[in-house]
């Protein structure tokens, strides 16, 4: 299984493009384009526009998000930005400020 992991203690500044899954537990600033899923773990800090197939957010994200399939904001997530996806879930305990666009 090939995955890109940005672990805790690591900061990536710039544009990340990938065909595989990305897991962010550290800091990411810039832009993310993934063909597969993106996971932003608890404790992660992402200041970027994110485009992916699906997105799971448990950490802090500032930026616009668009997913082909779905976006899940889990409890403890802190999202500031617009979310665009066919399916969006916001768990109880998630902080969110922005627009939701669920047009297909």
């Amino acid at each position, binding site marked *: 299984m090939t995955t890109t*992991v940005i672990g805790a203690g690591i900061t990536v500044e710039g*544009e990340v493009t990938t065909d595989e899954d990305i897991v962010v537990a550290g800091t990411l600033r810039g832009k993310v384009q993934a063909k597969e899923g993106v996971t932003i773990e608890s404790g992660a800090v992402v200041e970027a526009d994110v485009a992916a197939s699906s997105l799971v957010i448990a950490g802090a994200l500032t930026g616009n998000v668009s997913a082909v399939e779905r976006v899940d904001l889990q409890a403890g997530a802190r999202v500031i930005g617009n979310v665009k996806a066919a399916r969006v879930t916001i768990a109880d305990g998630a902080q969110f400020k922005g627009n939701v666009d669920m047009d297909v």
Partner: protein
Amino acid sequence: MATDVSIIGQSTRVRGRIIGTADVEVNGFVEGEVAVSGAVIVGVHGMVGAGVAGRRIVIRGSVRGDLVGVESVTVEEGGRVVGDVRAPSVAIAPGALVRGYVQAGETDAMPAIARVSESAKVAPAPAIAVRSAAKVQAPAALVGASGRHAVAAPVSSARAPMAAQQSVPVSTRAGGQTQSPAPKPPAPQQATRQPPPAPVVPALKKVRGQMAKKRER
């Protein structure tokens, strides 16, 4: 999932830099610098377009930029490095390609850098001369200009003259660069100059003696 190890996957491209305090494994492509205080592994399919700095650096892929290891740099078989390599312990395996100035060990090599940068501060005139020499050498050095800017300015100014005379041993180079402060340089210069006259004189005497013998005949 283990998120304590950072991995840039094979199909991942980072147009920017990676910094931090943990370990990083690069199997994809990073266009900018990788500067962490942990270990850095550039995998077989990994490519880094700028400098790499870390505690321990292992290169199995390609790097176009300078490698600075706090502890060690290892370029393994199949690894390709175009740039300078600096670490207390440097290992280059057979089958690896390194194109650049390599500085292993810190006992006398590191003070040499300090001395050169000091001389650049004290005497501006030689520093300019050094800079122009570095410019002339730049095309021949074959090191990508893109990789050079990643390293801090004082280091690059100190390193430029080194790249200009790659084949010269460290000790003589340090002596040559620090002519203006000159506490040490005169000693090695005298040591190298004095021996040659000694053999010349006996040789002349010998020739004269032979000529004198011919005249006698």
